[in-house]
């Protein structure tokens, strides 16, 4: 195959962040006029890869060839000039402007110093008509449904003469009917010779739309397949087929006790639907699924940070309904959030204050803090879970990621939480600290705590959980006991579509 067939070639692209390799020598060839699907698990590097094409990030190493022109890195302007249009999951639209103004944002048609609204609306109408989109260009974007807003994005790209349209999870925010109209537009664009790179975790869509499929895994290129010559099982194998080589510290056998610490019965709300699960004393329940499956949203409801609409929570057999984190903490629930810096730690305060914050009122007599007690508590956990610091007065922002995580954990131990929810407990933490966190989790269940662990790392999920419940699009799609853990099964359940 000669390179003139390829409208876009990525050659040996790597992207390094401090301590993390997001892309490792990825090459990708996109043929003129095809729909090329890009798939992979969470963190496989799909979004990073397309960002190198759009100019949102510069690759550390590699070459981008568009229509035979070679670039070492792109800028948003350069990529637009070379006919690349990107529809991100978050739209770049201004709600209070009209469709026409959005389509011509930054390049308004002018008459002298005045904007020529009539001309802009006329041209927008032409573009919309050509795409069979039936909306009026004078409508305000904020009055449109999500589906139509996406259409405006597509129209914008078309009006900019995009030859390659990259779509990042375009179906995720849409209803089923909207997905159908989006497919129709995509087919239409293809028939007009537009090349499309389509990112999705919904395998059904991939088979419905694409000509070829490229699989990424852990920032590496795995393979490219002809859609007609493959099937779901094969794809899943490529997506998850990694060697499981991380060693997990072993925990004592028979940690799991009969007693159910926590139970959710048909809980809906915050985007989740009828989630039921049980966590026993001394058990690590893994919560798996793709990004956006509603796992964090579920944790937020348990912790009282978000409201549930229906269903019940039980804690040690008693019905609970925490409306604020304060109430949840009092019941005995602790949350170690995913975004440590934004939600977990009080970065500007000391280690000691972070650990004692939830129990400050209990440590106080007539509102005056007993600093002696506070210090001895902080001291105790510093030793117990070995927080590495020269002093308890050290501000948390000066600690490493692993130690920050330990401080947050110490906070919940000090508050005597019995159910600990870990949301991506080892994200952004170096390998050594990871092992320490795993050992700590083991110690906690050995002491009889119950743990709900949300993890997008397949290996971690399988290595640490006693049981895994998998969510897909806000519902439980399956539950797997430890004996039956396997990557393919987990992936299959995670990419299930909700039938509605």
């Amino acid at each position, binding site marked *: 195959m000669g390179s003139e067939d390829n409208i876009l070639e990525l050659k040996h692209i790597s992207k390094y962040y*401090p301590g993390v390799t997001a892309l490792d020598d990825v090459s990708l060839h996109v043929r003129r006029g095809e729909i090329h699907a890009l798939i992979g698990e969470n963190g496989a590097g799909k979004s990073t890869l397309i960002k190198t094409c759009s100019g949102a990030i510069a690759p550390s190493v590699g070459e981008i060839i568009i229509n035979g022109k070679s670039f070492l890195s792109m800028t948003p302007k350069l990529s637009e000039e070379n006919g690349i249009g990107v529809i991100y999951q978050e739209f770049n639209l201004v709600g209070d402007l009209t469709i026409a103004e959005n389509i011509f944002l930054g390049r308004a048609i002018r008459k002298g110093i005045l904007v020529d609204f009539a001309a802009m609306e006329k041209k927008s109408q032409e573009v919309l008509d050509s795409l069979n989109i039936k909306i009026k260009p004078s409508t305000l974007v904020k009055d449109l449904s999500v589906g139509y807003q996406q259409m405006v994005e597509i129209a914008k790209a078309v009006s900019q003469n995009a030859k390659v349209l990259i779509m990042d999870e375009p179906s995720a925010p849409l209803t089923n009917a909207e997905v159908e109209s989006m497919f129709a537009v995509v087919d239409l664009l293809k028939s007009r010779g537009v090349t499309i790179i389509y990112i999705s975790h919904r395998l059904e869509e991939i088979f419905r739309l694409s000509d070829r499929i490229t699989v990424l895994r852990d920032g590496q290129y795995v393979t490219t397949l002809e859609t007609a010559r493959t099937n779901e099982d094969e794809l899943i194998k490529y997506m998850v087929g990694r060697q499981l080589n991380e060693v997990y510290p072993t925990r004592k056998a028979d940690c799991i006790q009969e007693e159910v610490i926590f139970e959710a019965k048909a809980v809906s709300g915050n985007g989740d639907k009828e989630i039921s699960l049980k966590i026993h004393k001394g058990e690590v329940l893994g919560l798996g699924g793709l990004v956006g499956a509603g796992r964090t949203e579920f944790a937020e409801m348990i*912790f009282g*940070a978000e409201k549930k609409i229906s269903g019940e929570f039980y804690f040690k057999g008693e019905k609970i309904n925490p409306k*604020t*984190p*304060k109430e*949840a*903490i*009092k019941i005995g629930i602790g*949350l170690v*959030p995913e975004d440590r810096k*934004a*939600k*977990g*730690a*009080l*970065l*500007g*305060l000391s280690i000691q*204050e*972070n650990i004692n*914050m*939830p129990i*400050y*009122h209990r*440590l*106080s007599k007539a*509102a*005056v*803090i007993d600093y002696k007690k506070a210090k001895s508590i902080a001291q105790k956990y510093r030793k117990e879970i070995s927080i590495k610091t020269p002093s308890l007065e050290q501000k948390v922002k000066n600690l490493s990621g692993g130690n920050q995580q330990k401080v947050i954990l110490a*906070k919940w131990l000090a*508050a005597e939480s019995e159910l600990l929810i870990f949301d991506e407990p080892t994200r952004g933490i170096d390998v050594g600290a990871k092992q320490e966190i795993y050992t700590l989790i083991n110690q906690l269940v050995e002491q009889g705590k119950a743990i709900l662990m949300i993890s997008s790392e397949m290996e971690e999920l399988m290595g640490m959980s006693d049981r895994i419940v998998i969510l897909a699009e806000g519902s439980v799609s399956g539950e797997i006991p430890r004996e039956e853990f396997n990557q393919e099964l987990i992936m299959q359940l995670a990419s299930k579509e909700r039938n509605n």
Partner: protein
Amino acid sequence: MFLLVMIIFFSTTSQNFLTVRNLMNVIKQVAIYGIASVGMTYVILLGGIDLSIGSIISLVNIVAAYVMVNLGLNPFIAILAALVISTAIGFLNGIIIAKLKMPELIVTFASQTIFAGLAYIICKGTPISRFPDSFLTIGQGYVGAIPIPVIIMVIVFAIGWFISEKTYFGRYFYALGGNEEAAQLSGIDVKWVKCLVYSLSGLFAGIAGLVMLARANTGQPNAGVGYEFDVITCVVLGGVSTTGGSGKMSNVIAGVMIIGVLQNGMVLLNVSSYMQMVVKGIILLIAVGADCVQKQRLLKAKKAAV
């Protein structure tokens, strides 16, 4: 540092500046700012702002004066009424900000006008004067050589320091100002803390208003106009970050002294009051600017380190 430079500057340019009498005068003059700045410190620690305190001071002036003169009641009752009302106004600000999630700027801006207007309505636009001597002592009396307003300021600062350093809810101010979401996820009742802080701001403004009334011996419906500006400047000059979460009560005392020395020095040097406004505005800009520049530099340094 800044304070020292200014003291040296004014003592070299004006021979009257470095006298004990004048320095005591400076402290006496700043007492009102100082008292109100304790509450404002909490508000700014939360990352908020309270523009209503000038009007609270005005209203307290009129309410206390009205109770003593027009109703002829005991000064003690007047003080109590004034403080209850000022705290209630602060609480009202707080509850609107916390429950309706309205921007602090607009809420306190609106209440500034509302309560300024109420002060005029109560006194029908005319000043009220002639208070009992016992009341005037608050503003004009001395204990030994020290003016009572100064003593009140010192006590208020001591209480203010104690609250922010030693009580659990005082530490919540820092937690909340640093990161509201993380604070909430650590089990802090964010709404409650906000109501408390704005109530305290109202309370301390109320105390400041009473001291002012007793000093001036006449209740003016426009007594507090513009005070929020000076008080905010004091707090910011004292190093409390306008983005919230960091700052120390002890440094705010220095901020208050800077404003005091500056005003006094400018008066001694015969700077016109119009020019004084210009200078004070510039100082506020510089103080906030320095904080922002420092933050950006830290951010850059951090990025460079990564």
